[in-house]
């Protein structure tokens, strides 16, 4: 049938300026190469949108993708999602700075190659490659590609974002309660059936996300032990 370029799919986008590698011919592509495409993105946060994770109260991150026509982006917003960011900023979100340093996968992120501490660039089988959050990275297992997550790395980043949002002030206790409430509500749904193995497992996992000092007394028996 001959060698022809791959079909231009809906996600086929020009590469980000200065970052997009030339796409090698099919015959020269290594096996196990990352497939697909994922656009560049920007993370935003606001102080009144928090979540719990690993015993910490952290900002719930909003993501704006650099896809033209999506989320308020114009046709020019293929590298920086300015339209979508502006839309989120009107709701009270703030664009997270590119230079927040944190530790992820056992290394400091300051000075990383992508120029943004929370983003990494991977070459793929498309003209435009794949952007990923720094706390996920591809692991090629033959034809299978997994994206393991460094959850501690993500939380370390979110802690830096929270510090930046607070700018020296203390986190309001009402905001902490609001962040804990959804996980507490879901955890309590399991209290009536703790004899079920799956219910008990989920209950303990949810309670483990809450800060120890904010675990209500009815859920305290399911809190992780300190050792």
């Amino acid at each position, binding site marked *: *049938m001959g060698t022809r370029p791959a079909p231009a799919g809906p996600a086929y986008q020009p590469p980000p300026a200065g970052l997009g590698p030339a796409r090698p011919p099919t015959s020269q592509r290594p096996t196990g190469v990352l497939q697909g495409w994922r656009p560049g993105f920007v993370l935003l946060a606001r102080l009144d*949108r928090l979540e719990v994770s690993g015993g910490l109260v952290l900002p719930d991150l*909003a993501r704006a993708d650099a896809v033209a*026509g999506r989320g308020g982006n114009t046709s020019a917003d293929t590298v920086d999602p300015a339209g979508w960011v502006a839309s989120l900023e009107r709701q009270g979100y703030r664009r997270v700075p590119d230079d927040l340093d944190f530790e992820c996968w056992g290394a400091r992120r300051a000075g990383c190659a992508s120029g943004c501490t929370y983003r990494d660039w991977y070459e793929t089988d498309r003209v435009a490659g794949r952007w990923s959050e720094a706390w996920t990275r591809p692991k090629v297992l033959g034809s299978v590609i997994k994206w393991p997550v460094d*959850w501690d790395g*993500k939380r370390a980043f979110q802690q830096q974002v929270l510090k930046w949002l607070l700018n020296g002030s203390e986190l309001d206790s009402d905001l902490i309660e609001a962040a804990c409430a959804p996980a507490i509500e*879901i955890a309590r749904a399991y209290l009536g059936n703790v004899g079920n193995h799956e*219910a008990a497992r989920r209950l303990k996992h949810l309670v483990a996300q809450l800060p120890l000092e904010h675990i209500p007394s009815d859920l305290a028996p399911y809190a992780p032990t300190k050792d």
Partner: protein
Amino acid sequence: MALSGALTSTVTLNALRRAITSASKNKAAIADPVMASIIQRDAVLGPVVGALLQRMSLLDLGGGKATATAEGAAQLASAAVTPTNIAPAPTRREYARDLLDSERSQLAGLGMGELPPDILDAFVMEGVDVWGNTVLSDILALATGASYSAGTTGTALSWAALQNGYLDMVNRGAVGEAGVFAAVKVKGIKDVANDVLSLGGAVQMANQVQQFMEVGKSGYVGSFFGGLRLYMLDDVATSGGDDVGVMLSERGVLTAHKVIPLPESATVLVQAGGGNWISREAKRSTSLSATTRIETAFWTASAAADPAAMTKLVYVTV
């Protein structure tokens, strides 16, 4: 395009059928009442189905309460009127197929069932599916920027998260006539299905929960809580270890399209205009010999409209 060599055999009798893909589930999702309502408000698609809206402004009206005042006292400050404007800017999307002359010739007449006899016609037909996939994918991606959230990062999706997310949307007054469209990946469906069994009692035995045991092939899982329709879709967004599904009522998203007719010089297969918002063009490739390029193009945009009408459903990817 990757057509199997076996199909071009001139000796063996063959039939060309449409391949099964996970995207076939999108057809049910794009027809959901919430999606239909969103599309009805689209300025270009609206006239096709009977409605029209180019842009939308949100006016926070009717939510306040009057304050007690004494006669002769200083006037109270009036409530501010600051509508938020939403005007998505359509951008061009393209999808192309390269078809060798020999492929078109050898595959002629092999189309069966839902496929037309000429492979060129099949690619023309594909355009509407591509448009649906694109619009749906754009709308699902908006969830990553949603202000409201249900579920917990790093944990499996639960029945309670789904229920609480829906009740919060009802409480915000965000649920309209079309109810709520909800979509998660198959992992999220499995999470909830396992969860309802672990909850036992009234939940496990509820009629609506039995829908998890008879999921149809379309990807539509069922209707829950009296107004939430749940779908299993591949195009649900992901974000650093979590899947980001969506709960959406019709006020949550505004789409926009633009009709850009092809010029006279184009070999037109299907022309934009007259209610047709997709152009399909066939042209001889300038870089590849004996090859026809079939281009599907349309102009589209999607943007979040009323933040209260969208909730992201967060759960761990693996």
